C-alpha cells in the first residue's frame, strides 16, 4: 500500500462556543483525487484553512509526507508543495492573468522571465491561454476559478486543496472544468477537493470523506458513501434513510 | 512628592482633562465603529469649532456654553455634509481612499484656517474662568468642572440615543452589518452621514468646553487628535464606554507622567503607549475585532 501523503490525526478547532472541527481524522493517498463532502457548516473550509496553515488547530496533528506540519505558516507549506484555492476567489485584480499566475510560478523560478513564461504554459493547460494579457478583474466567474487553479498549479505542488472550485459555475462550465481537474490528477498531483456538486464528486473522486458537524462520519468510494445511512441522514435529516428504504419498498 | 495632597489634585485634574479627551475620542470612535474609517480630519474640525467658539465670544459676546447650543448643531450639519457629499462619494468605499480623503480634508481645513486667521494664538477671557471649587485640598477650575459634567451628560445622552431611538438603532445596525441594514431598507449613505455629523458635533461641544481655558490657533486641534487616537485604540474601536473610560484613563496618566517626567516626555509616554497598544491589541479593551 502506498505511503499516505497526508495524515490528519484528531484535529479539533473551536471558535468561541462553536466546535467547528471535532477530532477529525483521515488519510489522503498520493496521486488520487479525494473528495471532502458534507452539509453546509460541517467544517470543511475550516479544515482546509487548518491544513494550509491559515488557522492553527486546538488539538491534533497533521503529518504531510512524513513530517509534522501542524501550525506551520501558509507560505512554508506552499514551499513544501501544498497549494490551495479559496472558496471565494481571490484574484490579484490589478494584475493581468499572466502576472497573476507568475506569482505562483515564482515559487520554483526566481527569474522573472522564466516565471512569466511558465505562467503562459500553465494558463494554456487550464484553458486561459487566450486571456493571458487581460486584466484579472475582467474575467468571468468561471475564468476566475480557472485562474485560482492556475496560480496554485504554477507553484508545482504535490498536493492541491480545491475549495469548491465548481461553485457558481453553470452546468456547461462544470462540464468544461471537470476534465481540467482530471488532467491535473493525471500529472501526478494529489487532489483533495471540497465539493457540493455531486455529479463531479461521483465522476472524479476515487475516495470520498464525509464531514458532518465537524466529524468524519463516513469514508470510502463514492458508491459506498452514497449508500451510507449516516450520510443520507446528515444531508436529509434524521430518519430519512429509513424513509427512503421503506419508500423504495413501496415503489 | 507622593503625598495625597499632591496626588489627589493631580488625579482630579487628570480626570477633568481626560473627560475632554474622552469626548473627542467619542466622536472618533463613533465614526470608526460605524463607517470603519479613521477620520484624520477630526483634529482640524476640532480646531475649526474652537475658532467658531472663540469668535462667538469675541464678536458676539456669546458665552461658550451657550454658543455650544448653536455651534454643535451647525457642526453636525457640516459633518453630515462632508461625509454625504465629499468623503463618501470620492472614496468609492475603499479603506485606503478614506485615509487619503480625510487627510486631504484635514490639510484643507487647517491651512484655510491658517490663511484666514494667521498663526496667532488667541484666548478668550471669561469673567468666571478663574473661579475655583474647593474639594478637600484640590482647587478645581470651574470651567473644567463644568466640562467634566457636560461630557458625562453628553456621553449618556449619546448612549440613550443609540439604544432607544430609531436612528440610533439604525446606526447600530449599519455598524454591525451594513449589507443587512441596506437590505431592510436603511439608507446607509444617510446613516453614515448622520454618524459623521454626530462625531463632528462631539468635537464641536468639546471645543466649546475647551475654549474657556485653552488657547486656539490653527494647529490647536492636532495635539488632541493623536491623543484621541490613542484613546480610541485603547478603549476599543467603536465602543462608547471604551472612549469614556479610556479618555479618563489617559487624562490621569498624562497628569501623573507630566508631574514626574515633564511635559514633553509625558507626551512621548502617550505615544509609546499608543504604539504598544496598536501592536499588542488593536481592538482595545472593549472594542470590536480589527
Amino acid at each position: 500500500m502506498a505511503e499516505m501523503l497526508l495524515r490528519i490525526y484528531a484535529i479539533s478547532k473551536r471558535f468561541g462556543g462553536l466546535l467547528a472541527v471535532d477530532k477529525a481524522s483521515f488519510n489522503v493517498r498520493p496521486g488520487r483525487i479525494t473528495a471532502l463532502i458534507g452539509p453546509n457548516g460541517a467544517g470543511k473550509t475550516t479544515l482546509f484553512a487548518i491544513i494550509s496553515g491559515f488557522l492553527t488547530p486546538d488539538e491534533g496533528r497533521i503529518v504531510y509526507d512524513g513530517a509534522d506540519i501542524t501550525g506551520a505558516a501558509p507560505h512554508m507549506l506552499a514551499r513544501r508543495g501544498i497549494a490551495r484555492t479559496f472558496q471565494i476567489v481571490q484574484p490579484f485584480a490589478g494584475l493581468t492573468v499572466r502576472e497573476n499566475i507568475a506569482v505562483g510560478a515564482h515559487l520554483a523560478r526566481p527569474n522573472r522571465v522564466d516565471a512569466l513564461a511558465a505562467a503562459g504554459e500553465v494558463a494554456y493547460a487550464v484553458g486561459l491561454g487566450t486571456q493571458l494579457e487581460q486584466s484579472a478583474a475582467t474575467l468571468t466567474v468561471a475564468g476566475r476559478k480557472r485562474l485560482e487553479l492556475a496560480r496554485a498549479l504554477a507553484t508545482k505542488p504535490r498536493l492541491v486543496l480545491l475549495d469548491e472550485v465548481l461553485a457558481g459555475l453553470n452546468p456547461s462550465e462544470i462540464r468544461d472544468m471537470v476534465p481540467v481537474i482530471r488532467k491535473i490528477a493525471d500529472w501526478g498531483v494529489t487532489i483533495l477537493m471540497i465539493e457540493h456538486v455531486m455529479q463531479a464528486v461521483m465522476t472524479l473522486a476515487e475516495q470520498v470523506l464525509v464531514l458532518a458537524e465537524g466529524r468524519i462520519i463516513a469514508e470510502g468510494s463514492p458508491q459506498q458513501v452514497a449508500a451510507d445511512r449516516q450520510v443520507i441522514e446528515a444531508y436529509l435529516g434524521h430518519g430519512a434513510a429509513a424513509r427512503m428504504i421503506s419508500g423504495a419498498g413501496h415503489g | 512628592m507622593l503625598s495625597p495632597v499632591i496626588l489627589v489634585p493631580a488625579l482630579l485634574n487628570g480626570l477633568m482633562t481626560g473627560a475632554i479627551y474622552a469626548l473627542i475620542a467619542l466622536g472618533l470612535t463613533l465614526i470608526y465603529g460605524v463607517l470603519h474609517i479613521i477620520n484624520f480630519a477630526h483634529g482640524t474640525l476640532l480646531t475649526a469649532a474652537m475658532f467658531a467658539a472663540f469668535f462667538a465670544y469675541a464678536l458676539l459676546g456669546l458665552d461658550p456654553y451657550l454658543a455650544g447650543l448653536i455651534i454643535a448643531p451647525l457642526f453636525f450639519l457640516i459633518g453630515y455634509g462632508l461625509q454625504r457629499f465629499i468623503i463618501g462619494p470620492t472614496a468609492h468605499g475603499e479603506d485606503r481612499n478614506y485615509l487619503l480623503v480625510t487627510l486631504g480634508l484635514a490639510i484643507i481645513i487647517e491651512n484655510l484656517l491658517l490663511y484666514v486667521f494667521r498663526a496667532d494664538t488667541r484666548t478668550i477671557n471669561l469673567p468666571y474662568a478663574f473661579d475655583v471649587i474647593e474639594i478637600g485640598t484640590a482647587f478645581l477650575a470651574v470651567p473644567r468642572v463644568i466640562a467634566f459634567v457636560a461630557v458625562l451628560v453628553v456621553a449618556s445622552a449619546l448612549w440613550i440615543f443609540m439604544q432607544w431611538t430609531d436612528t440610533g438603532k439604525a446606526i447600530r445596525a449599519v455598524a454591525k452589518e451594513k449589507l443587512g441594514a441596506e437590505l431592510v431598507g436603511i439608507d446607509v449613505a444617510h446613516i453614515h452621514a448622520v454618524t459623521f455629523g454626530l462625531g463632528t458635533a462631539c468635537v464641536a461641544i468639546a471645543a466649546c468646553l475647551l475654549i474657556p481655558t485653552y488657547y486656539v490657533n490653527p494647529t490647536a486641534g492636532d495635539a488632541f487628535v493623536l491623543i484621541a487616537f490613542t484613546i480610541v485604540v485603547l478603549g476599543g474601536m467603536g465602543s462608547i464606554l471604551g472612549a469614556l473610560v479610556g479618555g479618563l484613563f489617559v487624562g490621569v496618566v498624562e497628569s501623573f507622567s507630566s508631574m514626574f517626567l515633564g511635559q514633553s516626555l509625558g507626551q512621548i509616554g502617550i505615544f509609546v503607549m499608543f504604539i504598544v497598544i496598536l501592536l499588542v491589541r488593536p481592538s482595545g479593551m472593549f472594542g470590536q475585532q480589527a
Partner: protein
Amino acid sequence: MKTYLPIFVVVAVLALVPFVTASNVVLNFLVVTLLIALAGQGWNLLGGYGGQYSFGHAAFFGTGAYVTAILQVQYGINAWFGLLIGIAAGALVGIVIGALSFRWGLRGSYFSLVTLAFAEVLRIVASVAPITGAGVGTLIKLDLRPEAFQFQSRAPFYWIALGLVGLSLIVVRGIENSRFGAYLVAIRENEDAARALGVDTFSVKLAAMIVSAAITAAAGCFYAQYFLFLDAAIAYGTWISIDALLAPIVGGVGTLFGPLLGALIIKMLGESTKLVTGGAPGLDLAIYGLLLIAVVGLAPRGIAGLLSALVPRRFRPPSDPEHHHG
C-alpha cells in the same frame, strides 16, 4: 520585462537644464522638486507597489537629515560619509518600525496610524534632545567645497539630486523586474492569496520598508546639505510625510515615474498659488489637500493613469495594469 531606457532618457534630458538656464530661481525650484520626488520614490515603493500606506515617512527623512548634520557638526565627519551613514540610519529606523508593525500583522489604517505615531515620537524627541540643538535647531557650518558636499552654485546640487533620483528609478525598475517586486505587488493586491502561493509576506514587506526608508533618508541627507539648517519641525514634520505621499498619489501611485511627475505638479501648483495669493501661508497647502481629494475621487491612478488611459490599447506594454485596486 521592463526596460531601463526611459530612465536614461529622462535623466539625460533633465541633466541639460542647467545648461539651458542659469536662473537660481528655476534651479532652486527644481532641486526642491527632485528632493520631494526622491522622498516620494521611497514612499511609493512601500505604498504604491506594496500597498502599505505610511503616514510617517518623516521618520526616515528626518533621521537621514539629522544623522548627516550631527555627524558633521558634532564629530567632524565628512559630509559624503554622512550621506552614506544617514541612509543606513534611515534604513535602520525602517527595520525597527517595519519589524514591529509587520510582526504584529498591522495592516491598513492601523499601519498608517502607527507610522504616524513613530514619526511624532521622533519629532518630540528631536525637539528636546540636546544633541539636535533642541528648540534652536542644528546649523551646518558653511564650507563651500565639493569635498564638504557644499557648492557655490546650484547646478552641482541639482545634478546630485538628479543622480539620486535616477538611482532610485533604477532601483525601483530593477525591483519591478524581479521576483521580489512581483511578490510585493501580490501582497498589495491580496495578502492572503499571496501567502497561499508561498510568499513570505513579513520578509517581503520588511525588505520593502527598508529600501523605502533608505531612499527617503537619502532625501533627508540631501536636504540637510542643501539648506544647512534643521529643526524638529523641519526634519520630522508632517509636511514631508504629506509631500512624500502626495507626490506619488498625484503622479500615479505604484508607477515608476509617478513620484517625479507628481512632485513637479504639486510644486508648480504650490508656486503658482503663492504667486496668486502673494505668499500668505496656508493657501498653497490647502490646495494640496484639495488636489489629494480630487485625485482620489476622480483619478485614483494619478496623472500617469490619466495619461495611460489616453494611449491606445495596442501600444500598451504587455503588463500594463488596467485597474488599480485599493
